[in-house]
């Protein structure tokens, strides 16, 4: 028996196709008894390994044994009087599966090619004049949108596996200065890019509080962004 890795097969049909190819069998004349016993050896291994797919393999094993028995009996005939090969359905299934397996190979190529191509990455700096009458649906950002963007930023922080206790020196005043500096520099800024790169949740929380503070004293304004879960912060001249 060849050593083969069990998890390299996508299912029982895939394993059968492997046997057929490896032993150069004629798919229209599969030696059922030989292939059944070989298949059963693998099924036993799969059962031992307690793989999730075991059920599908066992089902195929019973189909094979059923075919094997029918091969020994006198052939049934169809309405035209022709003998019915007990293997016919299996052959059909194998060919159908093989057809899509090949397409999957082609898709792998397309995938490889497409992965080598890159799209344009950054659009935010494009100069836009939006005709105002088109902003019907999201004219004003609600507290809800704000909260959602906040939650998204928080959820975006990946949980650290190692728990280090470290003191983070950060205050609301610091973050107010940070926000004002960023706005001074760029005129306006997206919330997500404001908190981009912040590794600690507390830093985002404090930035957010600073943002609310600045909104309250009307130093900055907030409006919706074309992206959901984000919003744009802009400076107010006389703020």
């Amino acid at each position, binding site marked *: 028996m060849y050593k083969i890795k069990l998890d390299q097969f996508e299912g029982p049909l895939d394993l059968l196709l492997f046997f057929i190819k490896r032993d150069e069998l004629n798919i229209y004349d599969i030696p059922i008894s030989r292939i059944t016993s070989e298949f059963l050896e693998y099924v036993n291994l799969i059962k031992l390994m307690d793989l999730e797919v075991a059920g599908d393999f066992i089902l195929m094993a019973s189909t094979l044994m059923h075919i094997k028995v029918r091969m020994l009996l006198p052939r049934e005939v169809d309405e035209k009087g022709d003998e019915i090969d007990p293997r016919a359905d299996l052959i059909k299934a194998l060919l159908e599966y093989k057809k899509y397996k090949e397409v999957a190979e082609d898709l792998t190529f397309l995938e490889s090619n497409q992965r080598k191509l890159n799209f344009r*990455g950054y659009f935010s700096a494009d100069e*836009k*004049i*939006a005709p105002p009458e088109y902003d019907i649906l999201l004219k004003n950002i609600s507290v809800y949108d704000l909260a959602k963007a906040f939650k998204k930023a928080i959820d975006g922080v990946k949980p650290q596996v190692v728990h280090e206790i470290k003191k983070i020196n950060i205050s609301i005043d610091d973050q107010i200065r940070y926000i004002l500096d960023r706005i001074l520099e760029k005129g306006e800024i997206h919330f997500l890019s404001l908190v981009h790169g912040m590794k600690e949740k507390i830093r985002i929380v404090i930035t957010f509080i600073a943002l609310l503070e600045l909104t309250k004293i009307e130093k900055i304004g907030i409006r919706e962004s074309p992206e959901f879960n984000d919003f744009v912060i802009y400076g107010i001249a006389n703020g």
Partner: protein
Amino acid sequence: MDKSYSSIIEVLIFSSDEPISESEIIRAIKGIDGEDIEISSENISDTVDLLNKSYEDSSRSFRIKKIANGFVFVTSEIFAKYVGYLSSEKSKRRLSQAALETLAIIAYKQPVTKPELEQIRGVNSDYILTTLLEKNLITITGRAESIGRPLLYGTTTEFLKYFGLYNLSYLPKPREIEEIMKDEDFIEQKNKIMMNFVEESLEKEISEDKNDDPAE
């Protein structure tokens, strides 16, 4: 610096999803072609100038611009209204997440009152209800018997058409969705699926419009 690095610098700026600095560009080039490649920050800004010169000569509608944290491609401001049209079209095309959520709750719980709806969503839903009513995706179906006899909302035939549903029973059942999803991201996933429905049916609508109207 080898002249061929011009294209590489162009590609890196083009495909970076953040403004990209000179040092990052150098890091990528040295990372791939070896640390001994001689390339300086100055080479990069010179190359960018040459690229911009070449865009200008061939009347390209974009330039490379240096903003605070690095280089980015920007479209020329003389086209700002076209770029703006596109982005507003896009936001018009997409029902907001909130509207979608509201629509989903109404679709599954109908007939439903505003207080019930707001209890589920946790926020005031006046604006979205108005918008959905305007878009004829929902309608007032009657009045509840409860105190204050609040209005009841339900979906319309337009809603079914919009989502390509034969009738309401064709909506995926929450249980079915849950079976497919089997995880805690179920709600988010459901929203995504709904989004696709919206976008696709809109696209379909657009292409049907196109087919119906040969003048377009």
